[in-house]
């Protein structure tokens, strides 16, 4: 096989088996930037699985990255359970109002039915169409918001974090019903021949303590991941912000790959957990990818590969978090190009060649 012809699925599989590849896998975490590729507005994704698929496929074909992720915002699961989401015309949606205002209403919450509720059916349609079109060559994933984060959207973030101290039982009830929704959606994503891609920003130690994470987030993550493993899929878990104090717990939850943000240290991840899980990250989404030049991106890729390219369980070049909608195409391209420029095998000579 000519090495340049490797498709993302072949590349990931070969890398997983420890065989020779053409370059490291590379994942600029594309969200609503996909609308810019086909020239539509962000809000047009709402209720339109066909358009999401068209944009995701076009974006993949344009850049040739290694994982497609169907994602518009973090609220899809909470919305399907009654939270109100506001959709600005051409910006990412935001939470307008939580599903409930007080603990007395928790019993009214029902797990989401992905075939019926909110935008979930449209996201599933997008996954189906994307798999149909390019699923033979590239991994297609569906973003799945984890229980603690969804719980925060169900009752409001400030409410939820207060409840962790005031009324732990209420938090558990919220996480439990959010977990049931997440499992339903995970099953539907897997039935669409996709892999759930787990995201859990509120579980960050930028928000809650490691102790609170262990009490309120970990048990539900564990159950969710074990459910997904039961369906034969491996799990990438992304938690934003600071996470180094909970990496061991994220691994204990069963994650096969940790996606880390730029508030965490890639070097530290490589040293402390690289022998147990695959690592992906952590080019700065805002400072480098949005505001930097292609040359800044190139340097960031070289830095990351130098720090973690030899991580024992593998490393994926990636942005630290979802890319801002207006991330320049040239910067996304520069990320892939720099990864290809380093190529394979990764050698010190190549890494030293960064200055043209």
């Amino acid at each position: 096989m000519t090495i340049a012809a490797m498709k993302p699925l072949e590349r990931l599989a070969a890398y997983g088996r420890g065989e020779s590849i053409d370059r490291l896998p590379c994942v600029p975490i594309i969200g609503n930037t996909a609308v810019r590729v086909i020239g539509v507005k962000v809000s047009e994704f709402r209720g339109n699985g066909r358009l999401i698929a068209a944009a995701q496929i076009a974006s993949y074909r344009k850049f040739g990255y290694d994982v497609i992720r169907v994602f518009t915002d973090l609220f899809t699961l909470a919305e399907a359970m009654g939270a109100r989401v506001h959709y600005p015309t051409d910006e990412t949606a935001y939470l307008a109002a939580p599903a409930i205002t007080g603990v007395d209403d928790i019993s009214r919450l029902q797990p989401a039915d992905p075939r019926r509720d909110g935008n979930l059916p449209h996201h599933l349609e997008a996954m189906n169409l994307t798999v149909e079109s390019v699923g033979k060559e590239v991994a297609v994933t569906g973003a799945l918001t984890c229980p603690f984060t969804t719980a925060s959207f169900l009752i409001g973030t400030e409410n939820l974090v207060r409840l962790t101290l005031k009324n732990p039982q209420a938090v558990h009830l919220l996480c439990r019903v959010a977990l049931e929704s997440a499992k339903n959606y995970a099953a539907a994503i897997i039935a669409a021949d996709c892999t759930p891609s787990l995201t859990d920003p509120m579980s960050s130690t930028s928000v809650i303590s490691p102790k609170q994470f262990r009490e309120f987030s970990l048990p539900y993550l564990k159950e969710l991941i074990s459910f997904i493993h039961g369906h034969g899929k491996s799990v990438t878990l992304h938690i934003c912000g600071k996470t180094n104090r909970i990496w061991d717990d994220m691994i204990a939850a069963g994650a096969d790959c940790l996606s880390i943000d730029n508030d965490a240290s890639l070097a530290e991840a490589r040293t402390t957990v690289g022998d147990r899980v695959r690592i992906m990250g952590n080019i700065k989404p805002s400072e480098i990818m949005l505001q930097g030049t292609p040359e800044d991106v190139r340097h960031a890729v070289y830095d990351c590969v130098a720090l973690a390219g030899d991580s024992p369980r593998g490393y994926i070049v990636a942005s630290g978090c979802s890319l801002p909608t207006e991330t320049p195409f040239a910067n996304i391209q520069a990320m892939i190009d720099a990864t290809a420029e380093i190529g394979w095998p990764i050698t010190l000579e190549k890494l030293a060649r960064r200055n043209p």
Partner: protein
Amino acid sequence: MSGKKEDLLKKLADAVVDMDEKLTVATAHESLAEGLDAYEAIDGGLSRGMERAGQLFEEEEYFIPELLMCSDAMYAGLDVLKPHLKTTGEKKGTVVIGVIEGDTHDIGKNMVRIMLETGGFEVHDLGRDVPPRVFVDKAKEVNATIIGLSTLMTTTMDGMGQVVRLLQEENIRDRHKVMVGGGPISPGFAKKIGADGYAINAAEAVKVARELAGAV
């Protein structure tokens, strides 16, 4: 009295740090009954407690839940003491604060407001999703020392630069200091848009605000 006074101030601060709303309120009443000056009780008790809570947050001993609960206790104590204020003490400055238009994440902004209020600033909170023009108008109206801008989203960062540009257009840039903060904001970005200050978190924001207020 002075030993007793010190005890009460310490008890107030400890109650805030311990997130004990009931004890904070009871101690505030006790302080008044003992003839303690309300301003002193706020400044040397509640504020000191909040400052320590902020420090614990920086040291990653406390997290957002603890900080919120401390501020709940602090505000409960403040409700008791405020009506008894003879003077407002020496005000450090006036701040207009808000989350820039297009963003509704306001936990960070609320933290900064709390820390500024306890740090002796008069704070006008414009809430979230605030257009740049509203910041400028409010700053003029209350003669603000500082305009504080927050965002968690990269999509709304440009609105921060817009506030600075509006101040320049109206030739009042030197009247109000501009400080910025929030997830995607960096010192480099603050410099790029011509802001006067950047703070990485709520505790730091008070220090920066004090520096800026001193420089006006």
